[in-house]
């Protein structure tokens, strides 16, 4: 007997409205979920019509093959939204904002071919949903803007890393220490992008404790330890120093090649999830002061992560403002609050205080502000794409 079932009652609709102010709005049009049975030879949708607004399809794969469910435009070609990789027996929800119009609900057993389609009509309602064409154009613009930002940051990163590496290789440690945090800012702003390219991120940004015994430790933080060594020294030989420096240059070069490749693209989901990933970085290692163990320049990374997330939010802003204006308002406030708090400790241009100078109370205050931003930010992707 399953006691803890979702209760689709009026009472819980009220819960949604109150508790989930940062979610897809629970207007009256999404009260019911539409069951879809995806069979090997049929796509059975419980109802053939629904009012415009947020529609939730609860899709169950009742067939024997891995399947896909798509809501297609009237032309049968354009995909409004889709669920992929649904194994036999699995049930999953597709939440999608749909304007009035004629559509096809399509199941694709085996995930190839045209699949089996059934007509689905969306009727007029009080809910205002932008026409899909506008929304797609907005998302495309968001993607273009963010890719430009990434390329710009990587370009600066390449230049500043070269400067930093040159000073380090020349043995000018004072200069290298002065360049370290500022160069890393451009990495930290777009770190989730770097994470998408295989092991580029661990090779470039692993902390000593991240590396298993016997595995090589490379990247920023190895050089950081050498620049701010513990009393017993960093233990690197000159040959290792050259390898660290050249390795960092090579890996940043690879990042640059990847983001400038012709097939490099980022969709709204990746941008939204990247913003959340940046805040997760802050919560996991910056706010604890664990990122910059030797230099204690965590606040530069902290600010850069927030700025990167803010840019990602900024490019998705127009889209989200239509689906969830309250979320936009909340995020505006929370970003401003956190930035104001960080400004008490410096800026990227002027430099920050070292993380070790913060009191436990100040760290707690920063942590609270990060939580306050992260929780609504975790709704960004869904608000942008559904």
């Amino acid at each position: 007997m399953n006691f803890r079932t979702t209760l689709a009652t009026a009472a819980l609709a009220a819960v949604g409205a109150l508790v989930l102010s940062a979610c897809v709005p629970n207007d009256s049009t999404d009260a019911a979920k539409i069951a879809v049975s995806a069979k090997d030879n049929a796509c059975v949708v419980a109802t053939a019509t629904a009012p415009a607004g947020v529609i939730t399809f609860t899709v169950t794969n009742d067939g024997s093959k891995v399947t896909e469910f798509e809501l297609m435009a009237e032309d049968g070609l354009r995909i409004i939204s889709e669920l992929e990789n649904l194994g036999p027996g699995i049930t999953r929800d597709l939440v999608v904002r749909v304007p009035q119009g004629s559509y096809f609900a399509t199941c694709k057993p085996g995930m190839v071919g045209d699949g089996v389609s059934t007509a689905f009509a969306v009727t007029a309602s009080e809910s205002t949903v932008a026409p899909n064409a506008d929304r797609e154009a907005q998302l495309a613009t968001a993607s273009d803007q963010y890719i430009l930002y990434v390329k710009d940051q990587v370009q600066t990163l390449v230049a500043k890393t070269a400067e930093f590496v040159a000073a380090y290789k020349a043995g000018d440690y004072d200069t290298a220490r002065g360049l370290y945090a500022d160069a890393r800012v451009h990495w930290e702003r777009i770190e989730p992008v770097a994470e998408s390219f295989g092991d580029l991120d661990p090779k470039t940004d692993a902390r000593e404790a991240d590396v298993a015994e016997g595995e090589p430790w490379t990247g920023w933080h190895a050089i950081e330890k050498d620049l701010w060594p513990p009393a017993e020294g960093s233990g690197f030989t000159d040959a290792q120093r050259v390898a660290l420096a050249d390795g960092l240059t090579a890996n940043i070069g690879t990042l640059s090649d990847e983001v400038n490749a012709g097939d490099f693209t980022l969709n709204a989901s990746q941008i939204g999830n990247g913003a959340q990933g940046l805040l997760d970085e802050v919560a996991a290692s910056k706010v604890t002061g664990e990122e910059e163990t030797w230099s204690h320049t965590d606040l530069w990374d902290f600010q850069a992560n927030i700025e990167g997330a803010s840019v990602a939010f900024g490019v998705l802003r127009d889209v989200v403002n239509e689906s969830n204006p309250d979320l936009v308002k909340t995020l505006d406030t929370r970003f401003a609050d956190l930035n104001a708090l960080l400004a008490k400790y410096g800026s990227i241009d002027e430099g920050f205080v070292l993380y070790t100078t913060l009191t436990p109370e100040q760290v707690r205050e920063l942590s609270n502000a990060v939580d306050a931003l992260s929780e609504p930010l975790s709704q960004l992707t869904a608000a942008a794409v559904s």
Partner: protein
Amino acid sequence: MSKPSEQPREESPEAPNGPSRRAVLGVAGAVAGAAALGGVGGFAVGRASAENLTLNSYSFRGAHQSGIVTAQQDRLHFAAFDVTSNSRDDLIALLQQWTVAAETLMAGGELGGGAVGGAYQAPPDDTGEALGLPASGLTITFGFGPTLFTAADGTDRFGLASKRPAQLIDLPHFGGDMLDPAFTGGDLCIQACADDPQVAVHAIRNLSRIAFGTAAIRWAQLGFGRTSSTTKAQVTPRNLLGFKDGTRNLHAEDSGDISHFVWADAGDGQSWMAGGSYLVARRIQIRAEIWDRTSLKGQEDSIGRTKGSGAPLSGGNEFTEPDFAREGANGSPLIPTDSHVALSHPDANKGQRMLRRGYNFTDGSDSLGRLDAGLFFLAYVRDPRTQFVPIQNRLSSHDALTLEYLQTTGSALFAVPGGIAAGEYVGEALFA
């Protein structure tokens, strides 16, 4: 909007409602009062089988908040919060959201779109660890700390200073207190009690998630076993000293005493507190290793009762009234005058009593390998100034047990507003 006084619930033992969460939601609290009078059902044998206990659910709404005279559950997750926003509107919105969420959680439901029912690209609204678990007798009780009304620096952040009850004092320093700021104070508190610890933890976790941006947990305490009985049907449990605790506790059935000692009245000074109470929370560490090296005679003399049956040392059984005048062969009282019973008995405290609702806790061991454990003391009183403070002052200066074996490391006082009527949010009268 109906007022709390129009609700049918009495301060009688809150018996569990039926086993089905759906049914509970269906009645929406309307018949909760009638059900509450129906008997104590599954709680009749105290720590009964899990099947009996865990199917229970209580109504969130009523004349008083749940989790006070409710038959005390076995598990606790308690959390104190700092309000991180300075906005009165944010605070009200949080209390509204907590009200809706608490009612859902107590009915055993999932929050918002559920643990798996929302958009695939969004994090689920409910964290999900209570999926498949029944309501487990969950109660969620909210309180307001002194600093909500007047911040530590004296500012009136939310325009509530004039509403601060005289009873909601800044607790004085008691002799022997070694308070850790990490376990002291708080603007808000939530007491989540259940028969399944996972259900209590799920409640605090999700309520604190809702609070991000408005309030943040300041400190929290888990309790793994009750140290009091709040109904006569419950067996007296033992604390980590190994003694029965709460033998003479106030019980829900003593409705006259409950009204007199527990429930605030509109005439007590602040009308918004009508039907509410004041919650004293104290994290009392036991020096377990030292206590364990104490002779049985030494232990019983410290408490004033036998360790086995819990009878007073003056004789009889657990529920026999202690006879503080009865002397032994050497002419000294059988119940030592510095024993816990002698000092805390109502006869020694102008007849004052408290509704205790404490829990055994352990947070593992300290760096020296000593048990980090004790009693998380929770007590509901109508006026801490005349009930808790004088008794604690006596104990902290004379009580052999307190002086030698106990150390209080955390302390807080909260005003627990009255029950929540249909359509209301918790503490609504405070913001009227």
